[in-house]
């Protein structure tokens, strides 16, 4: 069984983002970038399945600018066997990413495609479902537990009401929740070894996918600032304020 894992390079979750002064977007120059956190869970799960002897190969793929390759390299350092980097610049919408991934799936013929449930930059939560739709494959979104069975997966999904268990036949798409596992750290020897693993370079245009955005970003702005609050001197004062001023208790 072969698992393809899609990873995205995003601004590190610990970084306070800054909005460009002209409102055209978010400052990304000289900002710490990392793998999208739930994509780390996706890689971890694929590697665990391979370690359990239930998969033979884990391939990491990313779509993005030149430096997005770092994200694939990190996946290789924690256990992926080889990588694919589809180069594309600018904002690539989830629909375009899913069309690119569809081409990669046609070529690689994986049994499973894993990715994070959502990227923490655009917060779209679309790519996995879109890919699954384009391929007419089953989808298990927001997965917090995956059991690999013969030709099937039993997946526990995090839904608003609690947990839902579904069974999907492979080939299938799984989008991973942060609760799925604890991603490992890459050891230094593995980081060195990862440098020797192959990363295939492709261009989005070579794949025949139009990546031009269909959504215009008109402006990006700060959310309304909260008004300055006050400090209270005692718990009694706090409770009185909450009751009589804010009227929330």
């Amino acid at each position, binding site marked *: 069984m072969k698992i393809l894992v899609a990873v995205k390079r995003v*601004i590190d*979750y*610990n*970084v306070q*983002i800054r909005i460009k002064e002209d409102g055209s977007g*978010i400052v990304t120059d000289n900002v710490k970038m990392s793998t999208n*956190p739930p994509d780390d869970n996706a890689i971890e799960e694929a590697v665990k399945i391979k370690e359990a002897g239930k998969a033979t190969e884990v391939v990491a793929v990313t779509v993005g600018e030149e430096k997005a390759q770092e994200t694939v390299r990190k996946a290789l350092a924690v256990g992926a066997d080889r990588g694919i980097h589809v180069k594309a610049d600018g904002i690539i*919408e*989830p*629909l375009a990413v899913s069309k690119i991934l569809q081409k990669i799936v046609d070529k690689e013929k994986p049994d499973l495609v894993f990715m994070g449930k959502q990227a*923490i*930059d*655009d*917060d779209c*939560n*679309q790519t*996995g*479902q*879109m890919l*699954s*739709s*384009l391929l007419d494959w*089953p*989808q298990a*979104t927001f997965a917090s537990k995956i059991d690999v069975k013969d030709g099937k997966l*039993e997946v526990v*999904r*995090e839904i*608003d*009401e*609690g*947990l*839902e*268990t*579904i*069974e*999907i*036949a492979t080939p299938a798409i799984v989008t991973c929740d*942060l*609760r799925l596992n604890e991603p490992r750290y890459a050891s230094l020897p593995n980081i060195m070894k990862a440098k020797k693993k192959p990363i295939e370079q492709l261009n989005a245009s070579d794949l025949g996918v139009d990546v031009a*955005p*269909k*959504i*215009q970003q008109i*402006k*990006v*702005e700060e*959310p309304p600032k*909260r008004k300055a*609050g*006050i*400090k*209270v001197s005692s*718990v009694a004062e*706090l*409770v009185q304020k*909450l009751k009589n001023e*804010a009227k*929330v*208790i």
Partner: protein
Amino acid sequence: MSVLLIAEHNNKELKAFTLNAVTAASQIDTDIHALVIGNNCTDVAKAASQLPLVKKVISIEAAHYENFIAENFAPVVIKLAENYSHIVCSANTFGKNLMPRIAAKLDTSQISDIIKVESPDTFIRPIYAGNAFATVKTTDSKKCVTIRPTSFDPCESSGGSAPIESVEAGEEFVSTKFIKREEIKSDRPELGTARVVVSGGRGMQNGDNFKLITAIADKLNAAIGASRAAVDAGYISNDHQVGQTGKVVVPDLYIAVGISGAIQHLAGMKESKVIVAINKDGEAPIFSVADYGLEADLFEALPQFIEELNKLNTIQK
């Protein structure tokens, strides 16, 4: 131009957030058709027909719609989509799971989780966990939009009498099988929708001390939250995590106890209506977003808090 609103329900009744989604839909266009897909869900179709803003209800019933599998739902929505300019649904796990499956087949770039309708093709949506608001304009002729329910008021739920039209069901997608659903049966409200949230951070020092948080949550009928630091330290399970990598909450009252206010936590709670911070460190960043800050040792403040709440209850009684 008209809007197809996919209703979220449990085959018995409409989910509350459907009413918020109808309000958002009405700001796009007044011609709203509600689509109810389910199994033995006649009552839901009736409830949808009573929403005064809904002009028509389309009902599709079949056994394989019982468990809301997106693979079963998407084809029938896609078939209906040709008559509509907008397909709209609330952005909770039901809509998040379903809408992109529809949008991809319609070759439309979906707009997720909008908080404001500027015009029928222009919307405001939060990005970077709400640290920035993006105004986006779609160039697609057919628009797939999901709505953040807490950003819109619920619509009127009675007084309407829209006609209900039945439409033939689609085929079953056999590669996906529903097995079971375990709904969290808790007396406590759900973190994502609670009116009050009480959260603890690393300042709680250990998991046992979270019982102080629980006691206050009990008093206020609140959900219990936590910072990533508290989760990483093993004080409490991950499903309580509020923040960029956890849940984004927008309660009327958010009480942050022993939470310093890391960026990643603030992203998950700073849209709350009223924020209270209790922290020993007067310089903690959490105070910069708090409406009411109390610089105090939480181990002294929390027992007093419970005492004061008890007094209030006595007065109310």
